[in-house]
Every structure is written in C-alpha cells, then in structure tokens.
C-alpha cells in the first residue's frame, strides 16, 4: 500500500510517544501517544462503518478532534475536505455538493448538511484504548490528500484536489533544507481551509515537534505575536500581513527562540522584513511562493538583509528559486516564451501541480507546451514574474483582477457577481492599500434596489469573511473608461 501524508505522524508516534504533539487553546496538551488514540478511534470507526467514500468532509474547529480527524482520514487513505464554520452556509453547502460528500466528521453534534449526509460526531465515539505499534493500514488508495476551495472569477469557487505525492515532495524539500527537530514548537495560526495550515500541522509532525493551535480572534496579528512570545514558538509560517500590521510594535519585541520563519501568500516587502529580522535575530527567514494548486509552496528565497536590499524590486523580496522538480515557463500575452530577464506570466509544470479542478473539465488555466524537448502540462498562474541576473525570480504583480487579502486569494469578479445579484444592479469592487500596504476591499453599486444595511447583511450570508468589502458606496452611475468598461482607476480615487 502507498504511504499517506499521515505516515510522518505515525512514525513519530513510535519514536516519541511521550513527546507533546499538539497544544490546543486553554493550554490542553496531547502527547503523540494520546493524539494517536484519538486518531485510532476515528480510523476504527471509519473501518467499522466500511466507509468507501474517497472524500470525507471535516467540520473544522481548533480542537484536538479536528487534528485527529485530519490525520485519521489521511491514514485511512481518503482525501479530507475542510469545512469552515466561519464561512457562509451557502458556501459550505456548495463545497459539500461539489465534492459529492456523503460523510462529514465533526466534534459538534448539532450541525446539519442535508438528509443524505452522514454526520459522524467525533466527541460521541466510544473510547477504545490502542497505542503501540502505532500502525494504521490505508483502507483506500486515493492519491488526493485534501481538497481546498479557492476564489473563482466566474463567481463560483473552484475545488483544488492536491495529491499526497505533491505534498510529500514539498516535505522532502523542507527536510533536506531546514533542520527541524523534536524540540521545535510550531504555530498553526491559519484557517483549516487555507493550505498553509497543512504546512504548519504536518510540518510539526515531520520530526516529532509540537504544534500550537491558536484561539479564535478578530485581531489575529496581536494574538500571533502573543503566542510566539508566550509559547516560545521556534518555527513559524506567516503571511506578510502579520509583520506589515505589527511594524510599529516590532522594535519593542525580541523573539530569540524563533529558528525559522517562512513567509508565503502575499508579496513580502523588504522594508518590513528588515524590521522583522531584528525581532527574530536568530531566525532564518524564508520567502516562499506558492499556490493552492502547487501544493502550498514551490519556491524559496533565504532572506539576507544586505543581499535582499540589492535584489528587491519595488521593495518586494524575491521569491527566489523554484524547487528542482518544477519546470518554469514565462510567457507573454500571446502565449510565447519571453526572453531571459523579461517579465512574463509564470506558468508551472511538475508533480507538485494539480492537473485539473474538481468538476471542471475545460479550464483555460491548464495547457500543454513543449519545453526541454518534452510536452508538459502547465498551469497558468496569472502572476507576472521575471528572473534577475542572480537567477532569482521576482514577483512583479498580477495580469488580472485577483488580489490577496491577508494571504487569501480573492477574485474581485466573484464578489462583483454576488453583489450584482443581491442589489440587482451593476457593481464594481476595488482593492486599496492602507499606509502599511495592507489591502482592503471597497465596493461600488449603481442605484441598488436594496439599502446598504441589507446589502451588507446579504453579503455576509453569501461570501467568506475575508471577501467582505470594508465599505460599500452607492453611486448614481459607475464611471466608464473610453472603451466602455467600468473605470476602476477612477473608482480607486473616489475611496
């Protein structure tokens, strides 16, 4: 049988059964042995119920059951599909239907996804003690490890099936280049529906480290810094927004216990990182580029202040080199490969990339191209990059209307579609930046049929929290450019 991504955890159950595996909010900790017992309980239940579904939903909260369920589903050989309680019911219902889920694991007994969905309430499973030999035989041979949903420009979210093999390639790279140990403490500060959570949780299990789960908070950056300080976190994965938001306070803080700090999800600014580097004086800071479609991250740039100062363009730290197994193609608007040093759209091929979205057969982002005498399937990222004279890649910007809001990928068109339907009018959404370069959204609606409060309320019911505009402005007429399109440049000046 193939190994699953849970095998790193199972291996370390054998090596370090008494080592702390996770600490959940309110300081409750679980050793590898104790966590294995919970994993085994869920796994045994799946076996007893003879679950043959290749995709299993998990209603995710920051408790031990969520971690155990992720591990159990992975060990069982199925793909886990995280469902976020903070997402609107309609979005979760879409995910359940799109993945054709028939089984959802949850520690909360009261949730309901439909009569055809079997809910397994984890906190009500009967305890059966089982420890050594810490082995769980995969019952299914599904190559997909998890399915996450990203924003879609057509107004419909897209399901991204990521293979276990792709995640294993990333973990192999991390293990070869960074030296984690059982003494390390990781922080998992992401939503379970965000792929950086996979890096934080499974990253901790690679070498028998401990992973801290964070309590829910509306002001996340403050809590992240608090956790780093209080729990002496040594391995961090963050979105750059965290250090952008906390710039003012960083000179007051020194975290000498941080050994590694990985950034991904947004452009990392050199000026912000230089300040952060003083806060984590002993840490290796790594800027990584990745997409949900590329199994979390696929490039690395080890930050050194003096070198980065020379290489950064528009204050943006390079995304560095791509992992060795990845083939890179930079193309112009016509789809032709650009010359070395020119800006082009980044297209990626290799085993870390997905080959299709869920239920979407014809997707323009995938195309075949001959490169290095091989015909490869490339994924068109929409990101504009160029290679500098030192061989590092630089992120320049987007070639479409996708934006990053605190690490979340957001298609403005998806929000505009929803807004238009709600208010029965034309709508436009723009992304603005505050003085610390933090992006936020502002929406404009043209003579809506609803009042602003009703629009805002309906938006909350239909789109994820990070897609909600900070402000909605009513206009009698949306400004148009010369070619008749909505003039977003003018709209930005109106905020």
């Amino acid at each position: 049988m193939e190994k699953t991504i849970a095998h790193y955890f199972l291996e370390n159950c054998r090596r370090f059964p008494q080592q702390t595996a996770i600490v959940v909010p309110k300081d409750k900790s679980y050793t590898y042995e104790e966590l294995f017992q919970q994993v085994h309980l869920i796994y045994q239940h799946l076996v007893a119920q003879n679950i043959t579904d290749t995709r299993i939903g998990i209603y995710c909260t920051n408790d031990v059951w969520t971690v155990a369920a992720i591990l159990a589903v992975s060990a069982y050989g199925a793909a886990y599909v995280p469902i976020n309680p903070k997402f609107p019911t309609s979005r979760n219902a879409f995910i359940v239907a799109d993945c054709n889920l028939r089984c959802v694991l949850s520690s909360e007994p009261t949730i309901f996804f439909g009569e055809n969905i079997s809910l397994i309430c984890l906190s009500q499973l009967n305890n059966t003690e089982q420890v050594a030999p810490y082995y769980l035989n995969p019952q299914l041979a599904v190559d997909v490890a998890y399915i996450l949903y990203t924003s879609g420009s057509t107004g419909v979210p897209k399901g991204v099936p990521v293979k276990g093999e792709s995640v294993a390639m990333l973990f192999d790279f991390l293990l070869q280049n960074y030296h984690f140990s059982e003494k390390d403490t990781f922080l998992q500060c992401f939503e379970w529906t965000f792929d950086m959570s996979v890096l934080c949780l499974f990253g901790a299990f690679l070498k028998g480290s401990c992973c801290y789960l964070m309590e829910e908070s509306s002001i996340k950056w403050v809590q992240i810094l608090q956790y780093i300080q209080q729990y002496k976190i040594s391995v961090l994965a963050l979105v750059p927004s965290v250090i952008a938001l906390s710039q003012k306070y960083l000179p007051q803080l020194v975290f000498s216990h941080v050994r590694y700090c990985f950034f991904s999800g947004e452009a990392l600014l050199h000026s912000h990182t230089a300040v952060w580097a003083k806060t984590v004086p002993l840490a290796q800071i790594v800027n990584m580029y990745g997409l949900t479609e590329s199994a979390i991250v696929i490039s690395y740039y080890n930050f050194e202040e003096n070198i980065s100062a020379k290489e950064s363009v528009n204050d943006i730290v390079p995304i560095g080199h791509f992992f060795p197994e990845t083939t890179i193609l930079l193309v112009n608007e016509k789809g032709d490969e650009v010359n070395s040093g020119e800006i082009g759209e980044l297209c990626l091929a290799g085993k870390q990339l997905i080959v299709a979205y869920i239920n979407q057969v014809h997707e323009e982002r995938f195309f075949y191209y001959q490169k290095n005498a091989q015909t490869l399937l490339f994924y068109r990222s929409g990101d504009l990059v160029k290679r500098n004279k030192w061989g590092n890649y630089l992120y320049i910007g987007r070639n479409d209307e996708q934006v990053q809001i605190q690490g979340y990928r957001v298609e403005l068109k998806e929000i505009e579609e929803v807004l238009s339907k709600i208010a029965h009018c034309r709508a436009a959404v723009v992304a603005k930046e505050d003085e610390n370069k933090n992006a936020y959204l502002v929406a404009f609606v043209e003579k809506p049929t609803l009042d602003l409060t009703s629009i805002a309320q309906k938006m909350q019911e239909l789109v994820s929290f990070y897609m909600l505009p900070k402000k909605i402005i009513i206009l009698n007429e949306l400004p148009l450019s010369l070619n008749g399109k909505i003039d977003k440049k003018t709209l930005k000046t109106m905020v």
Partner: protein
Amino acid sequence: MSYNIDEIMPKLQVIFREVFDEPNLIIKPELTANDVAQWDSLTHIAMINSVEQTFGIVIPFQMLMEMESVGDLVQGISQLLQS
C-alpha cells in the same frame, strides 16, 4: 492634558463610531472585537492610533496584548495618563 475615567468613555465612543463606521454604536466596558462587525486586524490599528493621538499617549505592545475589551482599554489609557 489629563482625563479621568468618566471623561475617557465619551471620547472613546466618538473614536469607535468613526473608526468602525457605526454612527449609533454605544460602547460599554464589556464590549470586545467580537461584538463589532468592523473591528478587525486593520481597524484595530486605526482605532489604537486614534486613541494615542486623542489622549497624547503611546500604548506599548505588552499592554496592547492584554486589552481585550473597552474596559481594558479605558484602564490602560487611565494608567498611561497617570504615569
């Protein structure tokens, strides 16, 4: 300029209404970020900046970490004004 606690709340109310874009918001000591829709990572900074300007204080990070409610904020402001 010095303020007592009774003077702090009305000034905070003005700041909160403006920053969180809720003209009718009534603040109470037990109010937290969970109770105000617009109180998030971004607006938190704007609110703290506005508080610092209004009261002529600088809130250190260690104090900021412990401020979970309006009541904590009032206490912190009061403490900084007296120091």
